[in-house]
């Protein structure tokens, strides 16, 4: 069964550093998403991406964040200058149509 994969599973970085979180969505999917879950809190929407552009973003997704689909398979989330409060589990999701999203296992980002 096809699945969404994410790398790395755990990333530790120092405050102010740039990080790139990588995702490989399911191959025939057209919609791509990033969510985050701060420890003990609910899952929050960050951004959706369709047809090579951002279709919607949340208030959390400020200028420090960017997304890219550099080739036909990867979907990346970049945080330009990490803050302590960026520490969270980041989930990538993809869907064929905008009604059923498949989630990856997540990347745990720890900012020290």
């Amino acid at each position, binding site marked *: 069964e096809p699945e969404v994969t994410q790398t790395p599973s755990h990333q530790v970085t120092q405050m102010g550093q740039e990080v790139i979180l990588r995702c490989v969505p399911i191959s025939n999917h057209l919609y791509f*998403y990033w969510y985050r879950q701060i420890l003990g809190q*609910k*899952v*929050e929407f960050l951004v959706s991406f369709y047809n090579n552009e951002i279709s*919607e973003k949340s208030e959390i997704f400020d200028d420090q964040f960017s997304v890219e689909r550099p080739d036909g398979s990867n979907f990346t989330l970049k945080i330009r200058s990490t803050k302590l409060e960026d520490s969270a589990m980041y989930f990538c999701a993809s*869907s064929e149509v905008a009604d059923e999203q*498949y*989630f990856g296992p997540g990347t745990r980002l720890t900012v020290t």
Partner: protein
Amino acid sequence: AQSVTQLDSQVPVFEEAPVELRCNYSSSVSVYLFWYVQYPNQGLQLLLKYLSGSTLVKGINGFEAEFNKSQTSFHLRKPSVHISDTAEYFCAVSDRPGNTGKLIFGQGTTLQVKP
């Protein structure tokens, strides 16, 4: 703006007992509704979804949910739980088609199944 409320943060239950996890939503438009499960150290797995049609939706692992428009609820039920059902359960809502499919999640309910 849409929101989702899961009324119980933790639900302890004995094995083979029935369980109901409650979810209420608010939205000014028609919505799609979902339940996801998260096992320890894993991602989110779709349990079931309501898009349209029958208000009783059956999902994987013996779970079902009922969409109640008048009460804006989408409670999840299972008639007999197993130890392996111990996990975090999230209710989520998204706008109807034509939008981006953004999911708004509830706070989650931890189901603890005891032997």
